[in-house]
Each structure stands twice: as C-alpha cells, then as structure tokens.
C-alpha cells in the first residue's frame, strides 16, 4: 500500500467484507474471485454496486467487468478520482 490513505481503503475493504460476509482482515489487493469462494458472479455485481454507492462514483461497464481483484477495484476507483 503506497498511497496516502484517508480512510478510503478501510471503507472499501469494509464494504467488500460486508458484501462477501467475511472479516475485512482477510482482504488484500491480491484477493480475487478465484481466491475467495463468496466472490461469485452475483456478488461481483453486488460489490460493484456497493462500492459505487459507498464512494458516490459510477463505473463503466468495462470497469465493472475488469474488477478482477481488490487491487483492480482500487485502480478503477483511482480512475474515478478517488484517492485510494
């Protein structure tokens, strides 16, 4: 984690943890649909909607499709101007 964090990262992890019903401490940039069972295609959409709502942003369809890991979700958020 290299960026200066103003609480955005913990908000992101807690949002994703809520959707996946797991503890936020098990989440890291590397966590992906392949590494955590609860991250299925339905929850992929839930994550996208929940993150949009949490940060007040709107991803493009391509961004939603490319969110293959938490690191990539952070990248999509940065593209939307979120400091994370």
């Amino acid at each position: 984690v290299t960026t200066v964090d103003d609480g955005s990262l913990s908000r992101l992890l807690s949002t994703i943890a809520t959707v996946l019903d797991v503890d936020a401490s098990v989440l890291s940039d590397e966590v992906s649909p392949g590494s955590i069972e609860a991250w299925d295609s339905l929850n992929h959409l839930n994550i996208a909607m929940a993150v949009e709502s949490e940060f007040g942003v709107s991803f493009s369809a391509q961004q939603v499709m490319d969110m293959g890991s938490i690191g990539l979700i952070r990248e999509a958020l940065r593209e939307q101007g979120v400091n994370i």
Partner: protein
Amino acid sequence: MLTALNELLQTVDARPTPAAYLAASRQLERFTDRLQPVRVALLSSFTIEPLKPYLQVECARRGLAADVYVGKFNTARQELLDPAGECVAYGPDVVFVAELLGDVCPQLTTDFLALNDDDVDQIIDEAVGNAVSAIGAFRHASSAAVVVHNFAMPRRTVLGRYDGMARVSEADAINRLNRRLARDISAIPGAYVLDVCGAAAQVGYRHWYDDRLWFLARTPLAAPALEALAREQAAISRVLRLPARKCLALDLDNTLWGGVLGEAGVAGIALGSGYPGNAYHHFQHCVLQLHRRGVVLALISKNNQHDVDEVFRAHPDMVLKPEHFAATRINWQLKPDNLLEIADELSLGVDSFVFFDDDTAECSLMRHALPEVMTVQAPQDASRLFEVLIGAEAFDRLSITSEDLRRGQMYQEQTARKRAANASGSIEEFLRSLDMSAAIRSLDAFAFPRVANLIEKTNQFNLTTRRYSATDLHAMASDPTQAVFYLQLADRFGDNGIVGVAVLRHHDRIVDLDTLLLSCRVIGRTVETALLAFIIEWAQERGADVVEGDFIPTAKNAAAADFYARHGFQRISETGSAASRWRLAVAETPVQWPSYIQLHVPATA
C-alpha cells in the same frame, strides 16, 4: 426483541446502500419467530437474485419473515406451466412474475417502427393471452397468490420527443399493454398486478435501469429500483398475509386543522387559503377520498363538543362533514378508552384501527395501551400530512369491491339502526321496524370478491372458520356435489350488501354444513335463521334426510356457539372435545323462515 429489529432497520434507513441491505438481510434470522412467515417465489425472465436481500428486509419492516425461492434464470413460463415444477413444490404463498417487455413482446422493443396500429394490438393480445393461460395453468396446481409485474416505460425512445405525438408510440403501446394486463389478470381469482410502471416513475427512469448491469449480467435494475420493487412486493405480501385496517381514527387540532380550537376559536384555526391552512384543507380532501373508497372514519379529540360542532356548522373550509364520521368522541377521556368504545360501537376489531394524531404523548399512550392499533404520528409539517398517513400503507388493498365503496355509508346507516334499536321498546319491535328483505343466490361472478373476502376475514359469527382461497372457492362452486350460497340483505336504512355465506356439501342423503358465516354487522337480526331455513329447503329438494355441521370454537366465534342448539340440532359428537358435530333431521325440523325478513326471490335464481 422487536426494538432490536427496529434498530437494525434504522441502520439501513440511515444509509440505504446495497451493502447495508445485504448485511441487514443476514441478521434477520434471529427475528423470524416474532414475524409472520411468508413464502415468496420470484419467477422472472432476467437475473432477479439481487432483489432477494432487499425483499427480505422490506418484508421484515412490515412484520413478515420472508422465505424466498428464486426460480432459475429465465424459467418463469416453464415454472408456471409445470404442475410438477420446483415452484409448485416449494409451496409458495405468493408468486411474483417479473418479466421484461423485451422477453414478452420482443417486437415492441427491437423493431417498433416496423409495426402499425393493428400489429401492436395483435402483439398485446398475444402477450396478455399467453400470460393469462400460463397463470390459469398454475391456478390448477397451486392456490398461491400470483402477482404479475407490469411493464415500465423505456428510458429513452427511438422517436425521441415525437413519441408523445406519434400515432403508434412506444409509450402508448406500453400503456395499452398495461391496461389490458390489469383487466385480464385481475379477472383470474387470486391474481394481481404489481405496478412496476408506477414504481419506476416514482423513482425516476434514470435511477431505475442500469444498462451496464443489463449487458454484463442480464440484470436490468439499478439499486434504487431493487429497493423500490422490494417495497412494492413486501407491501403486497403484507396485504395478502396480514389483516387489513378498516377505520381511521383522527385527531382534530393540528391534524385536520392547524392550531388549537379551544385557544384560537373557530375563526382562528388554520384551515383554508394560505399556508398552513391550505395544507390542512387539502388533507381533508384526501381523507374524504379515503372515506369514499371504504375507509371508516372516526374522530377522537380532546375538545369541547360545542366548539367542534361550531366548526362543522360555521367554518366555510371544512371539507369533512359530521356525516362522514361513523363515530365521534369529543371529550376529555383517555383516547385509548374512547377508541375501545368506538370499536365496540362499530363492531370492529381494535386491530383494524389506525390512529392518526400529532401529539407525541397521545401517540405513545395509544401504542402502549393498545399495541394492536396502528398508531401513526401526524407530522408537524402540515404539507406532509397525507404523505405520512399513506406512507404507513395501512389501507392498501388488492381489490376494491363495491362493498368497500359503500362501506362508509353503511356505517352511517348502521348508526341510524342503532338509534332505532335504542328507540324501540323491544327487540321484536325493532326487528319488525327494520323492514328487512333478503335474497339468496348461488355464488356468481358479481359476488365472488365479497364472498371470498367474508370467508377470509369473518371471525365472529362463523361456525367453522374454514378459510378458503379464491381458487378453492371456484372449485367448490363448480363441483356438482357442493354449493356456495350468499345472502344479501336490505332494510329501510339502506342496502347491507352481502352479509351471509353458506358452503354446503351433499352426499349420502346428508347435507353437510361446511361453512356458515354472517357479517358481524347483522348479528342478532335472525339472518342466520333465514339462511338455515333456506338450506333445509335446499336439502329437502335434493332428497337429503339430515343436515349436519361442525362447530369449531375459536377465540372469537362465541357469537355462533349456540347456533345449532337454538335451531333444534342434536349434538352427535362426544362431549368433551373442543369441536362438536350436530345433526338435524329435515323432516321434523322446527326451523322456519323468520317473520321479520321478507324473502326476495331474485329473477335470475
């Protein structure tokens, strides 16, 4: 326990995000035993799973613990048509059928401009016809309520701003489709329409559809749409599963007008032009409309009767008149005591009341003393009065019968009857003075909704309290060994409507009295004797020797307990058990048509 549930719901309300709904839905399990269970099946032509947590949360808010079955992707029609399918096997109470316009009428969405007016008619005919036959097939396999989603407007149309003027327009086609759907679906017993089009308009189309989710995952609905749709489904489930509210008990000061009458005087209350008087004036119009659609009105106010009479008499902007109220209590007693008196006077259960009052202390007293009353606090902001009242969803119905439309008037007539009863010297004199006339008919389409409603709701004068769904009722009415009769009563004060129902079964020279019930508003008027005299005659015509029936006691049906004994039936079951069985030999029956009621033989019978 329910406080904990309210706290959970408040965390959702504070930030109604997708994550909040998901998190809350996982915690609902611990409240299940305090809520009324409901089994909900979601059948759709698109990915509807995301709706599930929203639906469970919105159901819990309305006192329901929803178990939700989600049909497999795009199998709505197969599920409806297959009597051995998973949906039927699940045993739902309510089935929501959510299909997209593009799946039901693809041409209306993909090649609209190639169609002429007749083509559109034909497409609508076919689409609605298919839906009706699928639901008709499902009707034979399940008695669950079926709720069909209608269709939302497109977010943008090919014709753009010309769409509103075009002879064949997408908006017009969808409106026609929705109207047709409403007409044909509501003609099927136990089938209803969910107004997706209206819900989407409330939310706004921009927030309703999510094209990204559609192209990525065939789920067309954005988060605000899921929230709104879940609210609609939960509200409908509540109407289907929980008893309806019938009476609105209103406060006066700062509820029907602004200010305190005792201090401001008739000329000083805020009612009429200019804020806030115009808002109270508008609210009175809204309340009058509720009265017109069958909500019984009552007044409970701490005021001097004389002052209030003066407002009704002299204030030019009073929309509501004394005759709109079935009962009033203008006094200084405790409001729960007043409400109990009104419940008794109108023969309505306390749980059918909504209490609407601006005062925090009065509201908390009512909640504490009579928790079964739905207490809704009127907002300080007069412009929000109707929004808050209607937001409580207390008076939602899935059908409004002609009985409902007359109910307000019926209660006024009932009050006049009570006055006549008090004025008469004896009960016989009173009954004679009523000039009653009754008609008894076999169940027909006209009476169906009201009869179904009585079977579903009647508690007091009900021998067996057997509840039958609309589907059951249809089956019984068309079975040659069974018969469903209803009795309609009029008197000199007006038409009481359909007030009695009998379900009979004929086998082996026995007529079995499966169900006999009376509306509570005619108890004590010998109507049950009239119905029984008719049944005995019917039994004789069919060559039966005996009429038999059960009495199944409940917490509420003491009014019917002596029905059999009073009419000369012999008890044939062993004493000691709660339910009893009774028999009457028709040849030696002492039962006669009561002299107070004139039998009106309908021309069609």
